């Protein structure tokens, strides 16, 4: 495909439609238009649904924190929640037939719903710096206090009931592991793609290497993880480490980056290369300063796609780096937290407790990081293009 021909969009076709046909052809045209719209709408509903769920449940936790306990009033006769005013003074004794309960976290149900006392306290919670809020709404609500603890504190020894503790160790771990993985995979992938396109295109050797890349694409993440475990831990006798995980993830990332780089490089016209040689530029310099920059934004897309995939992988992380709630800084030895394993560890918490909300917070953080990387990459690509102008 020539780089010089324009690509098509809706406005182009509309501009060039010459005559409006009638009858059966018009009917088919409108039918297909309707079908495309319906299919897209139907599909987008659950997609937008899950995105909104992640954002609504996860975003609040990244900018706020629930209080340690929520004080609610319970009618003892039928164990249902009563309005807070029914229990009188917040620090006093409630009248007959009512009782104060302190529920861990910030969520409470509506007045009239059955109350489950599991995990709640019957006396005012003790401890320094305990934050207690009394429920002020009669409906179902989630009390939140502004805080950036999500970004500044590790989870530490926090329990699933307690809303204290942030995700710093998970964010750090995810970033470190992904960085290591990218540093290992991207140069390998790009050099491999360059080999396939620039040096070995059409040769037997090139086909053999391409065949191997196809095989690599097919390795499921769990198998890659078991292989690296056998190599690093069983045979070489090492410990679990973030580095081992990065290698396993690099095995998963490499095919994506390699294939997209390869496609981009193939799209660069040979006339460009020939022009460069005609000017006396050596081969390697041609590749570095003419071919690669031409394909730059497509390559960046491939890298971002690879990073997005690898950041959400859980199975290799569980096998090779475990899960940690404290901060550990050494990527070559020992466990580390990460966002997907944090999700996995806390997804079994009951939905009314703080641990469960952390799952969505971590998912939201993942999406946020990938989105920021995406915008950053597009910004770099655009800056590069502007510079050339």
């Amino acid at each position: 495909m020539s780089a010089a021909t324009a690509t098509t969009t809706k406005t182009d076709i509309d501009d060039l439609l010459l005559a409006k046909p009638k009858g059966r052809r018009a009917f088919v045209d409108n039918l297909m238009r309707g079908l495309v719209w319906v299919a897209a709408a139907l599909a987008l509903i659950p997609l937008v649904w899950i995105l909104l769920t992640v954002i609504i449940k996860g975003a609040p936790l990244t900018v706020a924190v629930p209080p340690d306990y929520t004080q609610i009033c319970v009618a003892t006769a039928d164990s249902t929640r009563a309005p807070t005013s029914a229990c009188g003074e917040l620090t006093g004794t409630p009248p007959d037939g009512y009782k104060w309960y302190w529920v861990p976290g910030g969520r409470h149900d509506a007045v009239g719903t059955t109350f489950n006392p599991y995990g709640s306290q019957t006396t005012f919670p003790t401890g320094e710096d305990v934050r207690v809020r009394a429920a002020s709404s009669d409906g179902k609500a989630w009390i939140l206090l502004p805080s950036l603890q999500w970004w500044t504190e590790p989870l530490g020894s926090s329990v699933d009931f307690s809303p204290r503790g942030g995700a710093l160790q998970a964010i750090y771990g995810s970033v470190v592991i992904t960085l290591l993985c990218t540093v290992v995979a991207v140069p390998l992938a790009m050099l491999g793609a360059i080999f396939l396109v620039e040096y070995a295109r059409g040769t037997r050797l090139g086909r053999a290497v391409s065949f191997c890349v196809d095989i690599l694409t097919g390795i499921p993440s769990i198998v890659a993880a078991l292989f690296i475990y056998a190599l690093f831990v069983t045979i070489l006798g090492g410990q679990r480490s973030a580095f081992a995980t990065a290698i396993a993830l690099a095995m998963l990332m490499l095919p994506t980056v390699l294939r997209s780089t390869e496609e981009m490089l193939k799209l660069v016209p040979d006339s460009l290369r020939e022009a460069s040689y005609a000017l006396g530029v050596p081969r390697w310099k041609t590749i570095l300063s003419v071919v690669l920059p031409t394909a730059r934004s497509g390559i960046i897309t491939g890298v971002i796609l690879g990073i997005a995939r690898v950041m959400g992988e859980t199975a290799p992380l569980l096998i090779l780096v475990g899960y940690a709630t404290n901060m550990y800084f050494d990527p070559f030895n020992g466990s580390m937290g990460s966002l997907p394993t944090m999700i996995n560890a806390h997804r079994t918490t009951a939905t009314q407790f703080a641990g469960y909300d952390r799952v969505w917070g971590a998912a939201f953080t993942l999406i946020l990081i990938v989105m920021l990387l995406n915008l950053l990459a597009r910004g770099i690509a655009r800056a590069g293009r502007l510079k050339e102008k």
Partner: protein
Amino acid sequence: MLKNRMTKLAALVALGTLGLAGCSAGTPVEPGAPSDTTPAGGGESTAPAAAGGLECPGGELVGSGSSAQKSALQTMIKAYTEQCGGTKIEYASPGSGDGIKSFIAKQVDWAGSDSALKTEAKDGEDQSEAEQAAERCDAPAWNLPMVVGPVAFAYNLEGVTDLNLDAEVISKIFLGEITNWNDEAIAALNEGTTLPDQAISVFFRSKESGTTENMTKYLQAASNGAWTAEPSKAWSGTVGEGKAETADVADAVQGTAGGFSYMEWGAALERSLGVASLAGAQLTSEGVGLAVDAAEIVGTDGDLSLSVKYDGLPEGAYPAILVTYEIVCSEGLDAGKTALLKDFLSYFAGEEGQGQLEAIGYAPLPEGMIAKVQDSIDKIK
């Protein structure tokens, strides 16, 4: 211009999110004079003098294993770390088998398991778990019982608040011989309750689980021959739908009319699921305590593996219990870790530690057992 648009978009999203999430600010409550004079339910002690028993050597420890004791361990680690700052203790819960494997492979410092290390080699292997662990430690590995968790048989039946079952009936349910809630065998145990005409939907743990193993041990011992399969971590019933984790099983029971399964007590409590009594014995900590009292120690030296009795227990004893152990090296961990391990386990086995377990669905160890566990801990080098 793009930055401007993004900022506006971000602000919009933030506001919208907070609004949609039904957030409120609540009313601040200042801790004034204690309002309620009833004694603290969970044995919460505020006096820091209780820390006098702890040495707080600090350092790092990593453990792994059973998910049945996950809440217990979380609570212990939090309480211990609050009293002894500067400690980093991790506990992951991929399952008892995984924990033991990691322990043998020197990946973790101790393992949490729902059963003691096996002393017989598995088919095709030449070493038993106990032997492999001894190789890892260069010394025997000890099983220290720390947490007693009852296995709750949870059900979802509208309008039925009290349900009584026994091992024989449960075995038949799990083997597909009883398929409806209004079956005569169940009705015979529940005179006075009308059971609805509802198919029984059985759920089980599809991952290999210590909870499954202990539950089937109970069935084998107490069902008068109705359950013949060997107790094992994998499901050996003939009906049911398998779900990966306890929470998945509990959610499935909660979401299916007529649902029935076995799980840790805490999981049933969290979701307000109905819990069956076994042969008249209600699931309470006293009932569980009676059953634990009847268990015998079969381990030697510092090893305290228990043999639990599921049959012939005193009246009111709840028979389906599982004892979870912390599997440790009796010697051989490096000095810093050994000191921390001993200190942490002492806290765990101590009165303050055990006292916090009741509120989260476990039963504390009986006094005599605690003393023996403490002895073993002291013997760790």
